Every structure is written in structure tokens, then in C-alpha cells.
């Protein structure tokens, strides 16, 4: 064949896509020809696949026509053609109708085809099977799974993963064959003799079989334990991925029941010395992610030692993985990995930048306030040599440090501002630095002026509009409260003179905020004259903003007492953005009178500056700890992990978002119930408190809604039974103290019928005095069970049902329900300001760790932990927790300092609380645990 004709079919390489319609027509013609030209068909299918791979797609009718045409190629016995036909079927099965037409032909190949095409045939078979046809393929799958040929066995096993959601019952029927495949060492038939260097199989089918077994058995704890025991012993598993998988199973089991650790500890420590690096790594990763009280210090030390050893191996990926695990540990327990510091330091100059970046961020975490500045110096030398991605990770790490060592802000700040001004870098990188600086301003108040001044310098020469606008906004927000506001005015006005209209408008808004500085008529005058000048701006928006600002200023001058302009220029609150968005979406969707009713923003939760900061701060804290919690790392998924590895925080996850919307959702639900209308607006809603085991027949959780002078308890009840409906479900809540309780029950709203696997809410309402009332409630669930006719799903006629009751846990309204977390930059200063104080001492006998007590206190008081005091250091037996919050009704501030000491007898707590409100203070302090 000459190069010329050869090239003709190689358009793919040139990157030019063939024309879709031409390919379509040519395919139809060639595939319907008789006899079939195998070579030409292969070329055409490869073009078709190329199109599909590039994201092109065909309308359903055309895809179906293609599918039928391709199916005709089964008449040709050529194996190579058959393989590509399978690929085409696999791709087309997604977009075409009636794919079942290929079933019989594929099955025949699975049964009688050559070994070369069997795996392909199996893979495409799963794409065309559906629930009704799958059973006829069961025998084929069975014999493929136990096939001695590793490729065939693997293809059948992996295809079964895909078959599971389609026809689980069928897959379950070959569980014993799958077990057989796990322990079977399959080798390729055509390789003769294996040597030590070139084993003739990786035994990968063991891994695939183990994975399938897990999917079939994973709901059954005992079965899973049996799998681990069965395959961990001896030399059953040769494949290292399969061994890694086994480690993950153990992790999964430990997550469900931490007490089984004693059983698995010897296994885990054995894996630490496995001959496969990946097994060592996985095992070390698991051990170090377990809660401390569950795992012996020796085992952890051994795991760290293993990781330390892996830092110096020649294989880059292993080094990377090890340093990444260490990095994770460094976020919770930096002192544990100090032993690795020499190795980490030598990795700073690793030729692989990913590794060096992780090494540095890890060192930053293990660093104490003493060596931070020297570390930062090392980084400064190094940061200009690396790519943006790593710069971002480093900036992120430094940003975390600002939280940990607020007193080190100076060197952190120097580093940030230097990199910002002198470093090259893209938008994301610069934005990251600016974000970090914003954090400094917000959460480290003593740094404010320096940061702002330097940001002013920075915006003199900044190429990114977005960043400029944000900096201007910050200057407007923070500038007026600084010692020397006029300094910022000059910088901002410079922007008005020099920049484009977007930035000019942002600058105008920022300027107008300076006019609101009290008692500075000179500044006010100059702002006014500046704004007047801006009224001649060529841009509409800029002019408009200047005019309106001037109007406000005029107005507030003539009526100094009026708060309206003050509030409009200087917003004291912001909306809960998540709630606002969902409200607006709802408003747009339920357009009943073509938007004649204006949007009602009053129901959207408003956050004061302090509350907003508290939520932000909390999010940051959670973001750091989220990376560590092992619970969030599900065993099979690797992608989420990879995201986090990049260090990019990609916005709040759905879960956090849901948290934001919680309050709004409750408000909506409750306001739609007429009985509660007169109670007014909800002041606070608690989180869901589980009141039963999650395995119970009826799963109940409680939510406490506090109104000004009412309390509503919401019980969310899930009926987990499959054939019984519950009628007239209600909850009887009686205050623990009985008749003397300050709460009076007003009404109960029952659920009429709770069908199987449904969740519904019933409510109990109480009236209360306006002051803070704390109370425990004893709860009993009352209901009538009605057995359901499986045919109709309705209760049997004449079945009266019988009444029953069900004890559920008590629900407590505590002082914490009247508090929201609040952020203060300087805890001790704010704490000293508070008037009323209260001290209480507790002794806790149960065997709890300090960390558990801390978590409990934070959950109970609803306050925001500050100064990083929410993490107990691991080795020490004492800890001081500092939290701050704000009363939901009066806005009284409250600060708590809890000192705790752990001894052999238990934990002793000394809680000191200070607050604006004596009652709140004593309630909180006396009901801490």
C-alpha cells in the first residue's frame, strides 16, 4: 500500500473532524452492502467513533438507523471488524433505541467466539441487556467469570458492575463464581513460563472479582468481615490493587463499628511492611485517619515510620502519596509527624514540584511560631520558580496559618504582599492572595491598617478588574473606621480618574461610604466635592451612583437623626445569599400575576455583619477539618480526593449549601401552617436531633423552633416498614418537671397517614414567657398501625388497625438554642468588656476524650469556637476552649472560657462565662454538658 492511499484514511491525526452527515451516509451504504467490505467498514466505524468521542451526537432516529446498519456487520466473521463493531454498539447503545436487537448475536460470540473478541463481546453485551433479558445471559456470565483467561474473566466481572443497577438479581446469582474468581490465579494462556521479572499475569482479575464481591456484600457487615479474613491470610491475593482494596474494606468496617479495631490491628500492622508500596501507603493512610482513642499509639507510630520510609523511595508517585498523607495528618496533629521533618526538608528541593509543594505546606503546618518566619523565607525564594497551581496551594496553606498564628501576621502579610506585588501570576493566583489578605483584615483586626494601605498601593497597578472592584469594596467597608480615612480617599479617587467605568462605579460607592464617618466635616466636604465632580462622568452608571450618593448625603445632613441614608450607604446587614437565591427562583417560577406582586424580601434571613463573619469563620474552620475527617472519604471514589489535592476550594458543597437553606425551608414550612401564623416569625431553628437509632422501625428526629413567646417542636418521622402504614401519628411531649413547667402545651398537629418509607412531620406547640426557658421533654410516639394489602397498597378493608406507642428519646431545649455563634477578632478584649460573669465546675466520669467534650460543648452552646481552640492537642491532658456567641432575641453577647483537665478519674471542667445578660450567662454556664 502506498503512503498516499494510507494517508487518505488518516485524517484523524490532522485533528480535522470528518463531516457528520457524510460519515452517516457512507456508514449506511457500506454496512448494507453485500458482501461486506470489512476493511472499509472498519475505517468508517473508526470515523464514526471519532465523531462520537469528540462529543458529536446523532438524533435518535439516525442513531437507531446507524445501530441497525452496524448490527448487519455480524454477518462478517472477521475478528477485527467484530471488535470495532462492539465498540460502535457500546457507543450507540446510549443514543439509539431498540439496542436489544443485537442481544442474540452478541451472546453467540460470548459463547463461541474467539478469545480475542470475547472480552469485547461481554462488555457490549451489558450495554444492550435490560432487566427482562439479563437473566438469559446469566449462564454466559457465570462461565466467563470462571474462565481461565484473565481478560475474559475481568471483562465479565467489570461488566457486572454495570449490570448491577440494571439487573441486580441476575448478578447475585453468580456470587459463588465471583468468590472462586477472587482466589483463582489466572495467567495468560499464550505466554509460556513466567520468570520473576516478567510474571505472565498481574492477576488483575482478583481485584475485579473482589470489587464485585464488595458491591454485592457490602451492606452485610458480617459478610464483609468474612471476606477480609478469608482473603487476607496466606498468599491468596497476588494482585496489589486487590490487597489495597482489602485495606479499604477494613477502613469501611472500622467506620461502621470502631470497636472491631482490635481484630484488625495485627492485619494492619502486617500490611505496613507489605512488599507493595501501595499497600503500605493505604494501610498507613487508614491508621492515621482513625480517631486516636481507637488505635494504639504504637500502631500510629509504626504507620508514620512507614510513611517516613516512603518519602525517600525512588518512585515519584509513592513519594507524592506519602507526603500527601503526611500533609493531611499535619492539619490535625502536626506534632505526630515532627519526626519526618528532616525528610520533608530534603523534599523541598525535590525535582517534582507537586512533592515539594506538599512538603512545604506540611512543614508550614508542623511549624511552630518560632520557625514560621524562616520557613516563609524559604518559600519566598522558591515561589517564583513554580507554576500557578502550586503557588495557589502554598498561598492556601499560608492563609490557613493566618488563622492558626494570628500573632505571626506580620511575616505572613509580608510574604503575601510581596508575592502579590512582584510575582507574576494569573487571575486565580492573585485572587487567592487577595482573598488571604481579606481574611487577614476580617479575622486579624490588628493587621487591618497595614493591609489596607498596601492594598491601596497594589490597586495602583492591577490588571484584573474583578480584583480591583473587590479591593475597592473592602476599602469602602473598612476604610472609614480606620484612623486616617482620608488616606484611602485619595487612592480611591485616583481610580475614578484613571480607570474604566466598572471600576469607577465601584470607586464611587466606596467613596460615598467615607462620607458617613462621624464628626469629620472636612472629610465630608471633600467627599461631597469629589462626588459632584464625578457627576460629570461620561458613563451613566457612574453618574447615577454619584448622584444618588449625594442625595443621601444631603438628606442625612438636613436630618442627622434619620437612619435611612445611613443604612443605604453603609449596609449593616446582608442577606443570606443562599436563601435569597432560592426565594428568587421560587418567585420567578411561581409567576402568577406577571410579577405585579413585588418580591417580598422580608422573609429572607438577614445577617448582621457579625453573624456573617461568624458563618464565614465557621466555614473556613470546617473547610480545613473537612479535609481530614475520614468519614467523608468514601471507599470507592477517588475523584473527590483529587479535587482536594489541588487545594482549590471549589465553593461550598451541596451539604453546606443545604445548611444555609435550612432556616429558610423551616420558615416556609411552618408559615404555611395556619395554627402557627399568630406566633410571628421564627427566631431560631435548631439542627435535626436524632431521637431514635437509625435502624429503628420508625426513625424520628426532632427540630426545635423558638418563637418570641412560643416553642414549636417538630418531629420528623420516617416509616421504614414496607407493608404497614401508620395512621394518626402524634407525639406526646411532656415537660420533665411536670405541672410546674413554664411551658403550656397549646396544640398538636398529627400526621393523618404515614405510608411505608415516607417521611412526614408532626408538631407540638407550647407557649412560653418571653424570657429564656430551658426544658427537657419526654416524648412518646402514638399511632395506629394498618396493615397494607400488597396488591393495592391500601389498608385491608375492615382492618381497624391497633393502637400502639413507641418510646423515643427526650428532646432538650437548652440555653444554646437561644444563641447564635458570633465572631470577634480579639477575644480577650471583647470578653473583658462583658459585665456579668458566672463560674461553674463539672466533673465528667465517663471515659471521653477532650476532643469529644469540646465538640459537645460547641454543639450544646451553639457558640463559635475562636482562636483555634476547638482542636485539643493530642498529647496534653489539659485544654482551654474559647467560644463566643450572641443571644438571638436581645442580642446579648456571651463569651465562654472552658478549662479542662483530664485525669485518670475523668475530666474536670471549669467554665467561666461572661455576658451582657446575667440570666443568659447563668443558663449557659450551668447547662454546659
Amino acid at each position: 500500500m502506498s503512503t498516499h492511499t494510507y494517508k487518505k484514511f488518516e485524517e484523524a491525526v490532522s485533528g480535522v473532524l470528518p463531516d457528520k452527515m457524510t460519515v452517516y451516509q457512507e456508514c449506511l451504504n457500506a454496512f448494507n452492502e453485500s458482501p461486506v467490505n470489512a476493511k472499509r467498514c472498519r475505517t468508517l466505524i473508526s470515523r464514526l467513533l471519532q465523531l462520537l468521542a469528540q462529543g458529536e451526537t446523532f438524533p435518535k432516529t439516525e442513531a437507531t438507523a446507524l445501530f441497525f446498519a452496524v448490527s448487519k456487520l455480524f454477518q462478517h466473521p472477521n475478528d477485527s471488524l467484530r471488535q470495532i463493531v462492539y465498540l460502535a454498539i457500546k457507543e450507540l447503545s446510549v443514543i439509539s433505541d431498540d439496542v436489544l436487537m443485537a442481544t442474540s448475536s452478541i451472546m453467540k460470540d460470548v459463547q463461541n467466539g474467539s478469545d480475542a473478541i470475547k472480552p469485547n463481546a461481554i462488555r457490549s453485551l451489558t450495554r444492550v441487556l435490560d432487566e427482562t433479558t439479563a437473566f438469559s445471559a446469566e449462564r454466559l456470565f457465570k462461565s466467563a467469570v470462571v474462565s481461565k483467561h484473565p481478560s475474559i474473566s475481568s471483562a465479565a466481572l467489570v461488566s457486572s458492575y454495570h449490570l448491577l443497577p440494571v439487573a441486580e438479581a441476575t448478578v447475585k446469582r453468580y456470587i459463588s463464581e465471583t468468590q472462586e474468581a477472587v482466589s483463582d490465579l489466572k495467567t495468560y494462556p499464550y505466554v509460556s513460563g513466567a520468570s520473576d521479572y516478567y510474571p505472565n499475569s498481574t492477576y488483575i482479575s482478583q481485584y475485579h472479582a473482589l470489587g464485585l464481591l464488595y458491591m454485592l456484600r457490602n451492606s452485610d457487615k458480617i459478610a464483609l468481615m468474612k471476606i477480609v479474613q478469608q482473603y487476607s491470610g496466606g498468599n491468596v491475593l497476588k494482585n496489589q490493587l486487590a490487597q489495597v482494596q482489602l485495606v479499604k474494606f477494613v477502613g469501611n468496617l472500622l467506620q461502621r463499628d470502631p470497636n472491631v479495631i482490635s481484630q484488625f490491628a495485627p492485619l494492619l500492622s502486617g500490611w505496613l511492611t507489605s512488599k507493595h508500596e501501595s499497600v503500605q501507603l493505604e494501610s498507613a493512610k487508614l491508621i492515621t485517619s482513625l480517631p486516636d482513642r481507637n488505635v494504639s499509639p504504637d500502631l500510629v507510630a509504626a504507620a508514620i515510620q512507614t510513611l517516613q520510609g516512603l518519602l525517600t523511595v525512588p518512585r515519584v508517585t509513592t513519594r507524592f502519596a506519602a507526603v500527601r498523607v503526611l500533609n493531611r495528618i499535619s492539619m490535625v496533629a502536626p506534632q505526630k509527624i515532627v519526626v519526618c521533618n528532616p525528610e520533608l526538608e530534603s523534599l523541598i528541593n525535590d525535582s517534582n514540584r507537586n512533592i515539594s509543594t506538599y512538603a512545604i505546606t506540611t512543614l508550614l503546618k508542623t511549624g511552630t511560631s518560632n520557625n514560621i518566619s524562616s520557613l516563609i523565607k524559604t518559600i519566598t525564594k522558591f515561589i517564583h520558580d513554580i507554576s500557578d497551581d502550586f503557588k495557589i496551594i502554598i498561598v492556601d496553606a499560608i492563609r490557613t496559618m493566618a488563622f492558626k498564628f494570628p500573632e505571626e501576621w506580620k511575616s505572613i502579610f509580608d510574604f503575601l504582599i510581596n508575592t502579590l506585588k512582584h510575582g507574576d501570576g494569573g487571575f486565580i493566583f492573585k485572587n487567592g492572595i487577595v482573598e488571604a489578605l481579606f481574611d487577614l483584615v476580617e479575622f486579624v483586626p490588628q493587621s487591618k491598617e497595614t493591609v489596607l494601605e498596601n492594598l491601596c498601593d497594589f490597586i495602583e497597578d492591577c490588571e484584573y478588574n474583578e480584583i480591583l472592584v473587590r479591593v475597592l469594596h473592602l476599602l469602602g467597608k473598612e476604610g472609614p473606621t480606620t484612623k486616617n480615612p482620608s488616606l484611602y480617599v485619595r487612592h480611591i479617587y485616583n481610580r475614578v480618574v484613571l480607570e474604566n467605568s466598572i471600576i469607577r462605579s465601584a470607586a464611587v460607592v466606596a467613596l460615598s461610604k467615607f462620607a458617613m464617618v462621624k464628626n469629620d466635616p472636612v472629610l465630608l466636604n471633600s467627599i461631597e466635592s469629589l462626588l459632584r465632580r464625578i457627576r460629570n462622568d461620561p458613563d451613566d452608571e457612574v453618574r447615577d451612583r454619584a448622584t444618588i450618593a449625594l442625595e443621601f448625603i444631603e438628606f442625612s445632613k438636613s436630618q442627622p437623626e434619620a437612619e435611612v441614608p445611613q443604612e443605604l450607604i453603609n449596609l449593616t446587614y446582608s442577606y443570606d445569599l443562599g436563601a435569597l437565591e432560592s426565594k428568587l427562583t421560587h418567585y420567578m417560577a411561581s409567576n402568577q400575576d406577571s410579577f405585579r406582586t413585588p418580591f417580598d424580601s422580608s422573609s429572607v434571613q438577614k445577617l448582621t455583619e457579625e453573624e456573617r463573619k461568624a458563618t464565614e469563620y465557621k466555614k473556613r474552620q470546617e473547610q480545613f477539618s473537612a479535609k481530614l475527617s475520614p468519614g467523608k472519604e468514601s471507599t470507592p471514589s477517588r475523584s473527590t480526593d483529587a479535587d482536594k489535592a489541588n487545594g482549590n476550594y471549589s465553593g461550598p458543597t451541596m451539604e453546606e449549601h443545604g445548611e444555609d437553606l435550612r432556616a429558610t425551608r423551616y420558615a416556609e414550612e411552618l408559615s404555611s401552617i395556619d395554627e402557627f401564623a399568630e406566633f410571628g416569625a421564627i427566631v431560631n431553628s435548631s439542627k435535626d436531633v436524632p431521637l431514635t437509632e437509625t435502624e429503628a422501625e420508625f426513625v424520628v428526629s426532632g427540630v426545635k423552633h423558638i418563637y418570641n413567646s412560643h416553642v414549636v417542636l417538630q418531629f420528623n418521622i420516617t416509616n421504614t416498614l414496607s407493608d404497614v402504614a401508620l395512621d394518626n401519628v402524634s407525639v406526646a411531649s411532656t415537660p420533665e418537671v411536670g405541672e410546674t413547667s413554664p411551658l403550656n402545651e397549646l396544640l398538636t398537629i398529627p400526621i393523618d397517614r404515614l405510608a411505608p418509607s415516607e417521611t412526614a412531620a408532626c408538631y407540638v406547640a407550647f407557649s412560653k414567657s418571653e424570657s429564656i426557658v430551658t426544658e427537657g421533654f419526654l416524648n412518646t410516639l402514638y399511632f395506629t398501625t394498618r396493615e397494607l394489602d400488597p396488591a393495592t397498597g391500601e389498608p385491608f378493608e375492615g382492618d381497624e388497625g391497633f393502637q400502639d406507642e413507641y418510646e423515643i428519646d427526650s428532646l432538650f431545649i437548652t440555653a444554646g438554642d437561644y444563641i447564635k455563634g458570633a465572631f470577634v477578632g480579639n477575644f480577650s478584649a471583647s470578653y473583658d468588656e462583658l459585665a456579668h460573669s458566672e463560674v461553674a465546675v463539672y466533673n465528667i466520669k465517663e471515659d471521653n476524650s477532650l476532643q469529644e467534650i469540646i465538640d459537645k460543648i460547641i454543639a450544646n452552646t451553639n457558640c463559635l469556637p475562636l482562636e483555634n481552640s476547638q482542636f485539643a492537642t493530642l498529647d496534653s491532658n489539659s485544654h482551654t476552649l474559647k467560644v463566643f456567641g450572641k443571644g438571638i432575641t436581645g442580642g446579648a453577647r456571651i463569651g465562654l472560657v472552658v478549662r479542662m483537665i483530664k485525669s485518670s478519674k475523668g475530666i474536670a471542667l471549669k467554665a467561666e462565662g461572661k455576658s451582657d445578660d446575667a440570666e443568659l450567662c447563668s443558663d449557659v454556664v450551668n447547662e454546659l454538658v
Partner: protein
Amino acid sequence: MGNFFSSMFDRLWGVNKELRILILGLDGAGKTTILYRLQIGEVVTTKPTIGFNVETLAYKNLKLNVWDLGGQTSIRPYWRCYYSNTAAVIFVVDSTDQDRMATASKELHMMLQEEELQDAALLVFANKQDQPGALSASEVSKQLNLVELKDRSWSIVASSAIKGEGITEGLDWLIDVIKEEQL
């Protein structure tokens, strides 16, 4: 060059010409059994065909491309996707299944009205003659209304795929007709 001549000869003798033959009929009539009886000469155990089977077989110097399409109600609508270039249709009837004879007749006549099958020869196998209570070929022919067919070469042969009776006779007739009419 050698290749070139041999393909020329092939063309002269008509060897290289592939003939497309469809085997159709209601489900359970014995289409798949007939197909493999033709190909390997043995009775294979079959299960309902989901889709189709296709086999190439050499018969009297001819290459036959035989398509056996599933007969279940859900699959019948797709028969038409495989009609083009068809030289002949073999329609298989379960001679013991008197209840569904009308359905078979309806499907047969509907299929024969298709434009793409106007030149195709028709061979009907009155299958399962080994079973008690099987209708004879002429009875089946009557029930299927075969006499109504105009402008088409057709024949009906009593057969038993299990015993291998009648199959070759039928196919011989079919090949003769095709050679006469289409080659």
C-alpha cells in the same frame, strides 16, 4: 494478479455472489433450529432469539447469508430493518399451532407487501411434522392463504427440523428458483 483472475472466475461461476436469505416466522416455530441444521447439520438447543442470528454457509457453489430473526411480538417490528437486498424469505410455521395460524398468515402477508421484498422468492416450511397433530403442508397452505400470492415464486414444504426432513428439499427448490430468476 493471481487474485484478480481467480476473482474473475469466481464472478463467472457466481461463487462470490452472496445471497441474502431471511428466516422469519412466529416465535417458537423453529427458525433457529433450521438455521443451525443448515449450517452444522445438527440439532442445537436454542432459547428464544432476542434479536437475530446470522450465519454464512456454502451451498451448491453458492454463498448464502442466512439471517434468522427473532419471532417474538416485541421483535417482529424490527424485521423490516433487515429486508433490503434479500433474495429469498423462508417463512417457518409451527404446524401444530393452529390457534396462531391466523396471526402467522397476517404477519406473512404484511411482510410480503413490503417494497423491498417484491422480488424475493418465498419458501414456507410447515415445520414440526414429527409432532402429533401437525397439519399437513396443504392444510397449512390453505390456512395461510398462499394461493392468493401473485407475481411471486413460492412453495410450501413439510419439514421437521429435529429429524432433518424436508429442509434440504426446500432449500434446493429455493436455490433453483433464485438461480433462474436472479443470477
